[in-house]
Structure formats: C-alpha cells, structure tokens
C-alpha cells in the first residue's frame, strides 16, 4: 500500500540522527517559548528563519514545525500554572486548567493537557498522512462566500463563549474588528484609519497587539497583586489523573481532535480558533456545564486536543497546496523558498522525502514532547519559579525583542506598550480580550471575503445563500444567535459565566 511505503520513506528521513536532533531541538525550543509567556512561536520562527538557510530543507522544516507544535504543549503548562496563556491557543486552557491548579490538581491538569495533546497529535498525524489529498480538495471548495459565512459563524461563536456579559463580548468583537480594519484596504488599495502613519499601512501588527494584550499587560496585572507569588509554587504531588477523569476526558479529546482537525485545515482557522470552538462544544454538550470555569478537566482536555490537532492539520494546505493558512504557515513558506523549494502541489510528488519526512517527524516530535513535558514538567515549572523580579524584566525584554524582530519597527514596541495598557483596562472593566482578538483576526478576513464575493457576483448578495456550504454556515449562525437570545438560555449562560 502506498501509505505504508510513504510513511516508511518519511520515517527513514525523520529517524536519521541529524533529523532526530533537529526535531528535538525544535520541540525543546518550542516548549521553552510556549512556557514563557510573551514569546510567541511565530516570533521564534521568524528569528530562526535566517539560520535555516544552511540546513537541508527537510531538517529546516522539521525543526521549524517542531517549534510550532512544541509551543502548543509548553503553552498549556504556563496557562495552567500561572494563568498566563503562554500561547494564544492556550487562552482557553487558562479557564479550567488554572482553576484545577488552584484546587491543588495542577498535576492532573498538566498530565491531561499533555495526554490530550499527544492523543490529538497522533491522530492528526495519521489524518495528515491519510487525508491530505481529499482534505485539500475540501479547502478548495471554499470560495469568498463560504469564507465570509465561516467568519460570521466564528465571530458569533466567540460571543457565545465569552465570559461575563454578552453585550461586553459583542463590544469587544466590534472593537477588535474596527482595529483589524486599520491599514490598507485590500479591495481599493487605500489606507484606512492609519492617521497618515506609513507603518500602519500593513495594519496594526498582530504580534504587537497579542504580546501587549496577553504578555505585558498580564505582567502589569500580576504586579498589581503583590501576593500573587503563590501561584507559582503549586504543589505537584500527584501527576496522573484518576481513571474516572481519564474516562471523562476521552470523549472530549475525541471531539476536540475532530474539531481541531477540521478547523486547522481551513485558512484562518488553526490552533486558536480550534481551542475556542472545542471549549464551547464541551460546555454545551456537558451534562454539568456549571463545572466549566471551575476546574472541569474536560475543559482542559478538549481544547488541548483541539489546539494540537489544529496546529498540525494547518500543515495540510501548506504541504499539499503551498498555501499558508495562517501567519506561521506563511513563515514556513518563506523557509521553503529560502531553500529554493517553491511550495505547491508538486512538493508531495517532487519532494516526497521532505513531505513525508516532516509528517513522520511530527509524530516523533509529539512523542518527545510527552517525555519533555510530563516527567520533566518540574524542570519547566522551576523555570516559572524564577522570582518575578528576575522573570518579569526578562520576559519584558523578550517581548520587546520578539515584537521588534517581526519587522524591525520601533513603532511595534510602542503599539505593544499601548496595548499593554489597553489590556489592563480590559481586565479592570471585566471585558475579555479573547473576543477582541478574534474580531481583530477574523474581522478583516470577513470584510475582505464579503467584498470579494460581492465583486465576483457583480453586486448580487444572493450568492451567500445560493451556495450550499455558505448557506449551511449562515443557518448555523442563525441557530447560534437564536440560542443566545432565548431568555432561558441567556439566563443560564450568564449564571454559568458568573463566578
């Protein structure tokens, strides 16, 4: 069978000592930057990109992808122990993971996060191997109209799963959407809301906003609570979750893997959206939704499975079509091109060593990550035990370096600091930054695809309901809205989110 032969090729490449070493280096760096809040894998990959020039293509890709999925593991450690998302995709893990840690169950939370990630990583690797061809065909069925409808569903979903008041969540989505529109409008080429500042032409840097909002502002909030140190010294007496907990988590992991695998393939989807979607699904399908936000282990297992599956399947459009679905994948394209390999449908056939080697390395990398993260979790925790007075300036410095390195712009540092203040403001008024970030990412995509669909249909709005996939997505959105608005559900939702 072809698949076996292909995987054999892949493992042949991935198991060479040099590539094993690069894979290990990648996941090690990935875990490190995942653990440390404020340093995103995208920053790390950007910094390391020039160094991969001298490596063989397969080794370069193996290492860079290791950083990406390694960060998904590391991110959850920080989310659980410090309530800082080390990674945007582990924002959701904070919700229940940190509650578990507060209740003295940090060990099981960390273990289930790693188990769920490994479980999803294994399945996602198989999915990539088996289904990369048909899946990339599915992604190709999506045109502007479908993307628009998908974004509408995504944004509506982000309101549904926001903490606290739905009105605040709507406001945050809209604010994110507005800020996302800063920059050059794709459809006219004209700059909007740039205040005449040339550097804003490409929009407000996502990394600057994310690091400001989730990195620096978290540091500031933490500093405003001097007794917070206790959060870092969580006892890790018991590591393994009980058999019952494992059993409770299995369906969540399966659902999370499925959600992540599907959303990861779609451009604009990926790890972060997957974890949000999975959390929403777990909460909705749970018999005891009131446990969520108070240390429900499924609330850790589902999203952790989803973000890892999403991170891995987002390689499908990249490896099969050469089309980056998100910013990190765009950097991967850059890495391939530095190697003189033009990403595209020919990579699978012309560079089977590269394609299958990277896929095989993903599974090996996931295995390494479990070892890195479970038995060695104490090591990573001790990294977090470094006193704030040392850790905070170091993180702030890393945040600055990372933000600056994206486009060598001092303005991004300014923006980062500005959004740090904005982030503090958000926390003080009880508004969640997650819907804001989703609005910021998905809003411009939604607008772009809306106007493109209208351009293609020569101004006929019926295109959104005439295309079946688009219509189905819009119907789902409508159902979600109805559910949100129904008084009974609304009351229950608010009760659930109030702490």
């Amino acid at each position, binding site marked *: 069978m072809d698949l076996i032969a292909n995987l054999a090729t892949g493992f042949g490449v991935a198991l060479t000592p040099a590539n094993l070493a690069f894979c290990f280096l990648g996941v090690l760096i990935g875990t490190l930057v995942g653990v440390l809040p404020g340093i995103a894998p995208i920053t790390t990959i*950007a910094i390391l*990109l*020039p160094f991969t*020039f001298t490596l063989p293509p397969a080794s370069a890709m193996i290492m860079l992808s290791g950083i990406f999925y390694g960060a998904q593991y590391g991110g959850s450690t920080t989310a659980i122990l410090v309530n800082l998302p080390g990674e945007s995709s582990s924002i959701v893990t904070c919700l229940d993971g940190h509650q578990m840690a507060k209740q003295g169950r940090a060990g099981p939370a960390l273990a289930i996060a790693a188990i769920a990630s490994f479980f999803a990583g294994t399945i996602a690797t198989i999915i990539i191997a088996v289904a990369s061809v048909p899946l990339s065909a599915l992604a*190709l*069925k*999506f*045109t*502007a109209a479908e993307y628009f409808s998908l974004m509408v569903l995504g944004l509506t979903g982000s309101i549904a799963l926001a903490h606290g008041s739905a009105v605040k969540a709507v406001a945050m989505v809209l604010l994110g959407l507005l800020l996302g529109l800063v920059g*050059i409008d*794709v*459809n*006219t*080429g*004209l*700059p909007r809301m740039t205040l005449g500042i*040339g*550097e804003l*032409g*490409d929009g407000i840097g996502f990394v600057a906003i994310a690091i400001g909002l989730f990195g620096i502002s978290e540091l500031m909030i933490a500093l405003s609570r001097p007794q917070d140190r206790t959060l870092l010294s969580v006892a890790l007496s018991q590591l393994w979750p009980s058999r019952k907990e494992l059993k409770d988590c299995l369906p969540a992991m399966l659902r999370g893997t499925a959600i992540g695998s599907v959303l990861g393939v779609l451009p604009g989807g990926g790890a972060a959206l997957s974890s949000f979607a999975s959390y929403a699904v777990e909460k909705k399908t749970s018999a005891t939704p009131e446990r969520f936000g108070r240390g429900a282990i499924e609330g850790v297992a589902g999203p952790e499975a989803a973000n890892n599956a999403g991170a891995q399947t987002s390689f499908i459009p990249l490896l099969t*079509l*050469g*089309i*980056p679905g998100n910013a990190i994948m*765009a*950097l991967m*394209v*850059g*890495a391939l*091109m*530095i190697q*003189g390999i*033009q990403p*595209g*449908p*020919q990579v699978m056939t012309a560079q089977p060593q590269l394609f299958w080697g990277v896929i095989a390395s993903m599974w090996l990398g996931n295995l390494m990550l479990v070892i890195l993260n479970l038995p060695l979790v104490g090591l990573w925790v001790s990294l977090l035990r470094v006193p704030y007075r040392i850790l905070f300036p170091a993180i702030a410095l890393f945040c600055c370096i990372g933000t600056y390195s994206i*486009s*060598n*712009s001092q303005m991004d540092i300014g923006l980062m600091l500005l959004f740090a203040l904005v982030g503090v403001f958000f926390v003080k008024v009880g508004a969640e930054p997650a819907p804001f970030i989703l609005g910021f990412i998905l809003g411009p995509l939604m607008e*772009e695809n809306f106007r*493109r669909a209208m*351009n*293609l249909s*020569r101004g006929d709005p019926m295109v959104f309901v005439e295309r079946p996939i688009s219509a189905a997505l819009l119907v789902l959105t409508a159902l979600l809205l109805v559910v949100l608005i129904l008084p009974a559900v609304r009351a229950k939702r608010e009760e659930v989110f109030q702490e």
Partner: protein
Amino acid sequence: MLTRRSAVAGLSATGLPLFAPALRAQTFTRQINLIVPFAPGGTSDILARLIGPRLSQALGQPVVVDNRPSASGNVGADFVARQAGDGHTLLIADAGTLASVPALFKRLSFNVKTDLVPVGMVSFSPYLVAINPQVPATSFAELAAYDKANPGKLNVATSGVGAVNHLTAMVVGKHFGLNWSAVPYRGGAAAVRGVVSGESNVIFNGAIATLPFVTQGQLKGIAVSGDKRLEALPNLPSFKELNTPVQDAGSWQGVYASKGTPAPVVARLNQELNKVLAEADVAAKIRELGSDVRPGTPASFASWMDKAMVEWGEVVKAENISLDG
C-alpha cells in the same frame, strides 16, 4: 507604448563614464546595509541573502540584510532615500513596482527618480498568464470570445490593487478587448488559490510559482510575458509574439543606492554586483527561482527605470488608480 525618453535617460546616467581604473580606490569603511522592503521569504529577500555574503567578500565589509516590509515596499525605499549617499545603504527591490509607485501615490514621501540611484539590475522573472481549466479557452482570442458570450464571468485575480500584475492584466486585457473584473487578493499565493478554486478564473503571476499548477492541470497556461517562451511550456506564446503592450512586464529585481552616492562608488558597486551575478552557482540558484540573471550598467538600469515609470504611469492614469486618495 514605448515612449522614447532617451534624453531623460541620458540625464540620469550623467557622470557615469567608465571609471574602471579608479574603481579599486572606492573603499567601504563600515558595515553595508542591504534593505529589503518586503517580508523575509520573498524574491527580493532571497536574492539579498544570496548576493549579500558575496558582495561582502568583494567589498571587504559585512553586508547585512535588513527587512523593512510594507505594502508596495514604500517604507524600505523611503528609508534608503533618506540615508547618506555614501553607498553604505543599498536597496534591493522589485524595479517595476518602484517605477509604478510615483503614479499610484500622490503623496509619496520620496522621489523615486531623484532620491534613489540605480546601481544595477539583478534578475527578471516573467509572468505566466493562466486560467482556471473550466474556462473553455486556450488563447487570448478565445478568452475574448468567451467574455463576449458570457459577460461578467471573467475575473482576474491580482496580488493587490496597483500591483504590477494588476496593471499588466488591465492593459493587456484592454488590448484584447477583454472586459474582466480585477479581484484583489492579499498577495500572489492567495490569488493563485483563488483561481485554482475557481473563485476567480484568470491570473497573471510569477512563472515559477504558477508553473506547477499548470503542469499538474490545476490551471491552464495562456501566454508568458517577456520576449521568449518558457522552456517548461514551449507551446505558450510570449508577449512579444502576441505583440501585447507592456511586453517586459514581470518581476524585475534591481539594486539602488541613496541620493548623492558618487558615481565612482556606484560604478564599483555595479562592477562587484555584476561579478557576483556572473558566478555560476549564483546564476544557477537564480534560475532555480524561475528568474534570469540580467546584469547591466547603472546607465542602462536608469534608462529602464525612466521607460518603466512612463509606461506604468500611463496605465495607472488610464485605469484611474490611486493608492492614497
């Protein structure tokens, strides 16, 4: 389209007689910054990282590649325009884009013609014109017939409003009587995806990036820009054979210095650049990227810029495109 502007070309090229014997005296005293006005991974960036280390060897000073990305590359070009004219700050950019920005932006913070000194052309990569295979056509003539029979069905995907591939599509389309709508995407890769999926159905895009889709049957080739056919697709006519406007449209990469850089310094840089481009492995690597090495003198590059600025200026005016309101 080819307006004769030799007088202007001559002006820009003044002060560049052959200083060959004195060239060695033009020494470089500190680090040279090679500015790439686009994100890492693009053509300019790859060329910069290929050429940089070798220029460094030749000039005896480190050459550091510095990415200052922005739309149209204006931020990076503006940065180079403002540096001291001593040859220690260089720009490597898409020359066609740079030639089109004065017409696209009314309030450009730098003057392409006077603030940037052409050092030398590096490479040329043609556009491949391709369509979604569902469109029943194999030539521009058949496309025009299809367009007439199915008005409002042809959409040409571009990598952005005002991008050279957008301008080329509009002026070439007009030449063949095609009434297609331009659909802007965020960059070339997204535009290709749009055409492969059938969302849009025509594209003018870098040959190397588009070729695999054509050879695998996901796109159908129509023509190739420039004056010769592609080796890989020998059946497709070149723009020259078709006698289209803007025949040499494509990706031209060139190196520029800051305003005021003395002619001998420019001449030394040009000489070393051409030496690097003459190295077999450099040329081979550039060919791998789907480009041809196109070394030349500063004067020939300057006159190319003048011609391109006039040509693209006319297209931008005819299409009534403005990128700053």
